[in-house]
């Protein structure tokens, strides 16, 4: 503890790290949480609405069932997201919408496509192949681990009751 509260010189002043951080935080631009939530809501909602429209289209015009239509729906959304990433548009949507464009499947596709584009200059194997899951990798890892744990809990509960 003693080292944590030790004052350090900034010019002729003596300040502890806590004192400085408190003083500096005054100048931190405030994030408008309500506005951010609203933007995330409407952009995220619009992406989901688009997904629903696509699903209905696949059911009504292409003979898919409600269950099987999800595959072409997701594939179409991924295609749109990757295209917008390649055209340099998706990152602007992301800056505006925050979680709204990060959470749906389009955000996942963007994280993979953006890493693949970024590392293209280092070659296909070590560049694209080695780096495209740089950001998405942890989503996959923790997604699988969470699903595994949920599966075990469900199985155990089934055995007990």
């Amino acid at each position, binding site marked *: 503890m003693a080292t944590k509260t030790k004052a350090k010189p*900034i*010019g002729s002043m003596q300040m502890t790290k806590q004192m400085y*951080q408190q003083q*500096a935080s005054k100048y931190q*631009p405030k994030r408008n949480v309500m506005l951010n939530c609203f933007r995330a809501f409407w952009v995220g909602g619009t992406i989901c609405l688009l997904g629903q429209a696509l699903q209905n289209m696949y059911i009504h015009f292409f003979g898919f069932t409600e269950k099987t239509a999800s595959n072409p729906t997701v594939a179409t959304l991924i295609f749109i997201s990757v295209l917008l990433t390649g055209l340099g548009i998706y990152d602007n949507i992301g800056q505006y*919408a925050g979680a709204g464009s990060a959470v749906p499947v389009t955000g996942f596709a963007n994280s993979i496509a953006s890493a693949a584009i970024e590392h293209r200059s280092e070659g296909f194997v070590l560049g694209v192949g080695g780096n495209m899951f740089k950001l998405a990798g942890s989503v996959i890892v923790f997604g699988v681990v969470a699903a595994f744990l949920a599966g075990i809990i469900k199985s155990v509960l089934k055995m007990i009751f």
Partner: protein
Amino acid sequence: MDSKKQTARISRQTWHFAEDVRVQASAVSVGPKEGEGPLASYFDQIHDDVYVGQQTWEDAERKLMENAVTILLQKASIAEKDVDVILAGDLLNQNITTNFTAEKLAIPLMGMYGACSTSMLTLATAAALVNAGYAQKAIAACSSHNATAERQYRYPTEYGGQKPPSAQWTVTGAGAGLVGIGGEGPRITYATMGKVTDMGIKDPFDMGSAMAPAAVSTIHSHFQDTGRTPEDYDLIVTGDLAAVGYPIVKELMRAQGYAMEDMYNDCGLMIYYPEQEVFAGGSGCASSAVVTYSYIMDQLNRGLLKRVLVCATGALLSPISYQQGNSIPCIAHAVAFEGGI
């Protein structure tokens, strides 16, 4: 002033250049966004393509530094072989931009790394080498590129993650200055080398708060060592503290009796218009280099500014260090210029 030895070292941090050390010429080469900024008319070369006609962003940054030095040599009407040493640095691993550029120029290289403080680190060292006679002509140069810095420190450029308003926009550009004895151009009179300062800021999207104490430390030492005050300068600039760090420096300096009001500005705030969507402002080696080697040199040469202090600020983090939970060590180096003498 008769003995160089007596006047060269003012203190552990501050050097005085007793010889007539001058920035004899300077040049900058920038990207498109900088070319749309308020200082555009002062830039020697503006590229309308962030790739600068190259295949990769890394090559683009190299081209920017090469171009800055080439234009510098043209402006000074000298050849590569007339330059004894180039002191240069950038933000990429192993200073790679600098290494390739120096190979092409075939000028002896002293590669330096001070993150975004590299502009004044190289210039101060160049002035010291020239003042001491180890070099007759030395070039100080540095570069940064928005896309290469994003890859180096953050996420892929097309990744759609949201950045907080305290984030900064890395300047795409390169600046170079030719240092020599005599001739024309602003004099370099003092340099104050900074100490690493770390006040425990860990957020790499908040470099302004992290670097402000380093700037205060160096500027304060500069005033103490030289006996000067803010009023002795027409302009004092920090390198890239932007909208968050700038008011912190003002407040901390005021609290220590050095009111830096109208004469104080920040290169990260000067290089872009606020409407250019650059979050808190510009950052990167090129922020201070481009502003110093274009606008400030021009104003000094034309006598519109008499005395200027440039304090370049650098966040010495590595991508690994902050992921491991370390705070951001910062540094600032200051160089004092005098025009019209």
